[in-house]
């Protein structure tokens, strides 16, 4: 059971939201961020190399050129490994928890799992981001001391930053499962 929808992020980039429904109690959303474009890659590389070549003609030291090559390579590697997030996954399992995974372009994955017992609610929130107001989905964590308090807010899809229509789609499904969870945890 899998369907894919296209949305756009806050800057107008194209996002693909994959929704996988394993069972009524287990749902996965995968939000693929826009890929790194060849154009921007070429532009950055050319800029660095042109600057290095300009410096080289000024001071005639070939170390600068090799340094530029290394800087480009290391920068690209670092960008792919630590900055560029390829897709973000949200896995909601009823009565178990919510798991967020962000996969970097290099294949590195960083996962956070939040147990259902700690989750207070999932809400859509507003935030001021640069010059505009954006919406984001976030998980509210329960305060272990005070049962109705909120100790922490965990934002979701931080790198993709989808628009409200996409968030509502995810939000509805989350709420379905959370409602089921609440009903079962109170009934016995």
């Amino acid at each position, binding site marked *: 059971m899998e369907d894919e929808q296209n949305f756009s992020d806050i800057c107008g980039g194209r996002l693909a939201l994959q929704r996988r429904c394993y069972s009524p109690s287990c749902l996965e959303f995968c939000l693929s961020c826009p890929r790194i474009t060849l154009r921007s890659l070429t532009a950055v590389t050319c800029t660095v190399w042109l600057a290095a070549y300009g410096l080289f003609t000024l001071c005639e030291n070939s170390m600068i050129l090799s340094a530029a090559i290394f800087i480009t390579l290391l920068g690209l590697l670092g960008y792919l490994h630590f900055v560029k997030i390829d897709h973000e996954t949200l896995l909601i399992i009823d*009565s178990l928890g919510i798991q967020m995974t962000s996969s970097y372009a290099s294949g590195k994955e960083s996962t956070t799992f939040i147990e259902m017992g700690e989750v207070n609610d999932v809400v859509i929130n507003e935030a001021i981001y640069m010059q505009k107001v954006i919406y984001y989905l976030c998980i509210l964590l329960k305060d272990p001391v005070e049962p109705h308090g909120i100790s922490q807010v965990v934002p979701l899809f931080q790198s993709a930053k989808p628009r409200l229509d996409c968030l509502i789609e995810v939000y509805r499904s989350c709420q379905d499962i959370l409602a089921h969870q609440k009903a079962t945890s109170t009934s*016995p």
Partner: protein
Amino acid sequence: MGLVSRGTAEAGLGAASAVDRPGPPDAVPDPIPTPPAEGADPGSSRGPGMVLKAYFPTCCASADSGLLVGRWVPEQSSAVVLAVVHFPFIPIQVKELLAQVQQASQVGVTVLGTWCHRRQEPEESLGHFLEGLGAIFSHKPWFQLCRERGSKSWSCKATRWQGPASPAASGEDQVMLIFYDQRKVLLSQLHPPAALPDRQAGDTTASAGGLAAVFDTVARSEALFQSDRFDEGPVRLSHWQSEGVEASILVELAKWAAGPVCLLLACLLSLVSAASACRVFKLWPLSFIWSKLSTCEQLRHRLEQLTLIFSTRKAKNPAQLMRKANMFVSVLLDVALGLMLLSWLHRKDLIGQLADALIPVADHVAEELQHLLQWLMGAPAGLKMNRALDQVLGRFFLYHIHLWISYIHLMSPFIERILWHVGLSACLGLTVALSILSDIIALLTFHIYCFYVYGARLYCLKIHGLSSLWRLFRGKKWNVLRQRVDSCSYDLDELFIGTLLFTVLVFLLPTTALYYLVFTLLRLLVVTVQGLIHLLVDLINSLPLYSLGLRLCRPYRLAAGVKFRVLEHETGRPLRLLMQINPLPYSRVMHTYRLPTCGCHPQHSWGSLCRKLFFGELIYPWRQRGDKQD
């Protein structure tokens, strides 16, 4: 169904998921009454039925049929399967074994249900037999777990017995199968998120999290896993087994010898610390010197660490054990690096060369300082300084340098021997050698320190005088009681003398400030070098090498939490998840296990440092030990 399961971890599951789909469809009728397919009865599955979670060890996935033994956690409505008891068994013996385990581990281990692994043709009788077992080992709910032959289709059924003998009236719940690696879960140490301050690292039982309970259950029922495959007990169990005890003689010997060696070393160390606590060393000039020498600080720190390592008391919790191990590795590395340095120094007779080079370097530094002073006594950088004061200060400092040079020359015959002895100290560790180096630098640049102190005192006097005289100039004064500037009427003679002094100080300020600036820069250079050495020492002292190595080689030992992966799924079958250990990030490893260093915080923030420099207060590289504790 386009989901491709990535990177399967375990052999049994890997095989299961690698085969895309079992070849022949199930022609044989299912002997075990399967739970009603969820698709067929949406009302019961969509309703607010409980979702039961069954944690199942991956190593038991290929075990023979039998009984599921584990713990039922009612708050989480989850069952943690620990082992599978194989046929044939005598129920009394199983109960006895479980009672033993329960007594040893304080975990409520019970029989949870049955496990049926169909390798060959299904046997009709087995199904009925398994069903009948529920009557002997009554448990609510009763799990019936079943794996089809060589395939990935599992079925699971949880039955709540309403009456003692009426399975037909039982209610059935949704079941979720979660596979876990028993060995990793057993060995791993869960670190709850650092964001919650009231939870302690070792305090997993207090936190009521569901996963913590699972981890706790597995860790505490270690007694169940003691028997290995070759043991011939009355009950045949299937669970994770170690690869066999390592029977190396060396390890045995080390284990056997560790106790007495520790005792001996602890005695020696207590002797050393008693000697160092001797009253003779606490007399005034000596104690002052001890507190200022970084070598002594470092030695004291190492002594404390060694005392802790070789103390015969057992570590109370895993955190303490880890700390001990970290300290031990850190000391070992330190000593190894120190020995390397020592051998390198002695192989090429570097000490002699160093001693020969030291005197000319000191001379050269003194000469450069003389040049600098002569430059300052002229018109440095075109600045207009007060000639008389300039000459006085310059001559005073020149005389000081002269004294210093003669002192160095007096010392020169002994330098090589001193250096040789100092070099020997490297066998105590690289950090000790570095601390000694820092102290030597401090001693060799004593003249710069003196200049700095004179300059700073003079400048400080001027600045304070000027600030209070400026208040007098405006007809104000500092009210100590109210901590503010109040207006005040002065006498005529006070005003006159104050203004006279103010004028004099204003015109003399640039000269003093320039001398202060130059010597402060020199001092800052020395302090920076010393600070870098201290930083290196602190790094070696505080790096939790053992934890980092553990994180690198056995990532599951330090767990930040878990992550789940959905295994291939068919409709109508229970959801299967694979639980993997989420290793702790390196930054948190560093943060959690960083060893305390000797007074490790820098004394100033940048702002206060600049303020102190501006007002001419003295800055010191050494740290105050007592102040930072509270």
